[in-house]
């Protein structure tokens, strides 16, 4: 780590955008994302980054600027958090349906009401069906590497990518990380090109009203309707998992880091108890896993989910085939049901012969502290509990750390 620097997670994200040579940056401040756009503004004003910086009047417009720029064939970036992400929700669906390779950092934060500026994952989870690829970083090195890989992925598959990282846990803490070499980044990330880029020389009308059924174009060639366009998005989003793995291998070739782009397992090889989590919590669980193994003789492991959409269901199900207990810890949920990730994992396991006992835990909403001790205690209790709980009870999420 000779070239390592110590900086905040938000600066790591901004450095990735600088290295990626994004050309249009749209920005609207929201805690805890604000320092990303402040840093980009500083880099551009100081002449250290050659890009257009548009200080828009809302997140809805921030994504609109990105949509405009990307539709014209220019690499665009924005960042947001929480209600800012929700305010651009309509635009997220638009960008995905228009197949624009926009990259956005989402610095995860709880959603109002009531107001919370602290971390959880409800912002990203609420947008899981927008048609964006969603990846989650666990540390500063992953923020910078994952953001660079996100540009490559977005432009190969033409689907926008949301790079998520935990507000404050990562955004405002300082950690060492190694910024990739700029010349190598240029080799890794070629210029963005788009076959439908807005052009007076080759005029097309983009995203216009599209009928339910296929229709002949001016040359008599049949073109699919709305449903066909949306089906193609779904199919190609699924294929993006493999492309993400290919990109990771390329990245490893250039920079020597990577190897776990979709699932990042820790001590899972012989584990009969597997904890599944996204973001920094997965790293926190490494300590828990070590202690469970050492103090309690529980063969525990933690499986960090790095990519949430497209959902790598079969990869997860296969990784969990030898587990007896699977514990899904989440900082967000589908209200009135369960943790969204838990429900996804449960459904992914359905076609497989081995269905481990599943446990769902909701933790850390609105920044509620997640003591490592309580992760340890709840995990240990779940592994030793009676397996014969009634189905309705065993399927309900347990809320950890309530202070009622």
């Amino acid at each position, binding site marked *: 780590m000779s070239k390592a620097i110590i900086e905040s997670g938000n600066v790591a994200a901004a450095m990735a955008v600088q290295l990626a040579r994004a*050309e249009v940056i749209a920005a609207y401040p929201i805690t805890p994302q604000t320092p990303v756009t402040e840093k980009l503004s500083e880099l551009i004003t100081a002449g250290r980054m050659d890009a257009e910086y548009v200080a828009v009047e809302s997140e*809805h417009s921030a994504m609109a600027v990105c*949509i*405009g*720029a990307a539709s014209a064939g220019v690499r665009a970036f924005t960042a947001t958090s929480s209600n800012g992400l929700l305010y651009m929700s309509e635009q997220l669906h638009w960008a995905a349906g228009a197949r624009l390779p926009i990259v956005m950092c989402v610095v995860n934060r709880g959603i109002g009401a009531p107001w919370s500026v602290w971390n959880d994952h409800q912002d990203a989870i609420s947008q899981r069906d927008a048609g964006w690829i969603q990846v989650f970083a666990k540390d500063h090195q992953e923020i910078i590497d994952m953001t660079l890989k996100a540009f490559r992925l977005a432009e190969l598959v033409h689907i926008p990518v949301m790079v998520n990282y935990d507000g404050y846990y990562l955004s405002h803490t300082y950690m060492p990380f190694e910024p990739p070499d700029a010349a190598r980044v240029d080799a890794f990330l070629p210029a963005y090109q788009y076959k439908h880029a807005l052009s007076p020389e080759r005029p*097309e009308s*983009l995203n216009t009203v*599209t009928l339910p059924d296929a*229709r002949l*174009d001016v040359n008599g060639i049949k073109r699919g309707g709305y449903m066909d366009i949306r089906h193609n998005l779904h199919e190609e989003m699924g294929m993006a998992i493999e492309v993400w793995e290919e990109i990771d291998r390329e990245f490893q070739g250039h920079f020597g880091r990577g190897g776990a782009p979709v699932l990042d397992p820790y001590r899972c090889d012989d584990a009969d108890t597997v904890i599944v989590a996204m973001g920094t919590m997965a790293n926190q669980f490494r300590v828990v896993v070590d202690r469970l193994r050492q103090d309690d003789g529980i063969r525990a492991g933690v499986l960090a989910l790095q990519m949430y959409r497209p959902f790598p269901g079969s990869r997860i199900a296969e990784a969990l085939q030898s587990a007896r207990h699977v514990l899904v810890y989440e900082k967000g949920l589908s209200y009135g049901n369960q943790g969204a990730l838990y429900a996804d994992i449960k459904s992914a396991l359905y076609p497989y012969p081995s269905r481990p006992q599943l446990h769902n835990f909701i933790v850390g909403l609105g920044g509620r502290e997640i003591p490592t001790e309580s992760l340890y205690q709840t995990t240990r209790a779940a592994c030793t509990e009676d397996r014969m709980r009634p189905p309705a009870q065993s399927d309900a999420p347990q809320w950890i750390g309530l202070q009622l």
Partner: protein
Amino acid sequence: MKMAAKTTVLNLTEEEFVHPGNRACSGCGLSILYRIGVKALGRDCIFVVPPSCLTVMQGLYPIAATQMPVLNGTFASTAAIATGVKAAMRRLGRATQVVAWAGDGGTSDIGIQALSGALERGEDIIYICYDNEAYMNTGVQRSGTTPQGSLTTTTPFSGKSEVGKNLPAIIAAHNPAYLATCSASYPLDFHDKLLKAKQIKGLKYLHVQTPCPPGWGIEEHMTVALGRAAVETGLFDLYEIEDGCLQLTGPSQQLLGKACLRPVREYLEMQVRFKACSDEQAAALQAQVDQRWAGYRDKFK
């Protein structure tokens, strides 16, 4: 003030930029405007269009009635999308004009925040609001610019009780590089104001009154005559604002020489949408017009 070009029917280009057989209603004011406006803009431009009648007129996938490159976008974000396209053009080293073309709902209501932001930033775009004074594409609901007394499907029986927004005045308060009001009934005036706007850097805003036969309750052949009546009664004034200075233009300027204008009532009576308009409302409207024109005569005599 920049000198304006003077295009006539005779020297107006015969090149067309929109195909016949499109989905616009018969006698559509927007169609006249679009057809002649694009002649001024030329091919080196990109349109940004929110949901509106223009969306429908432009054609349904995969056929475009327009020959221009268009980015259709969400309702609230026209000026912001145009900002992004223009930023991209600068990155690509292109002088391509970026033209946002939205209706009155998309401009005065849902799109006003993004437009206000673009105005404040001084984005180098042309923004055209074709004002048909209601949400016509969804079937004639009241909008911010629907005039008082006008019947719409959401102001039934007695008409809209509130006064419509003076959108050009709201835009003018942002000090745009150029502001002009136009009418679909005077397409050459619109054409030449666009030629002028193309020469100016910054945000150029053109507000165009656009008669709508089904929405206003007029026969299709009356579109042009009605827009003319709006101007000749002094209800809708054609002007330009540059450097904060308002000047009446063309047909409105010529009205300054007249001792009295056509009565407002003539305009109201041509349209079904004003049939619930009371005598008092009509008289109040006439008084407003008289007062405004007295001010113009003082100012410009």
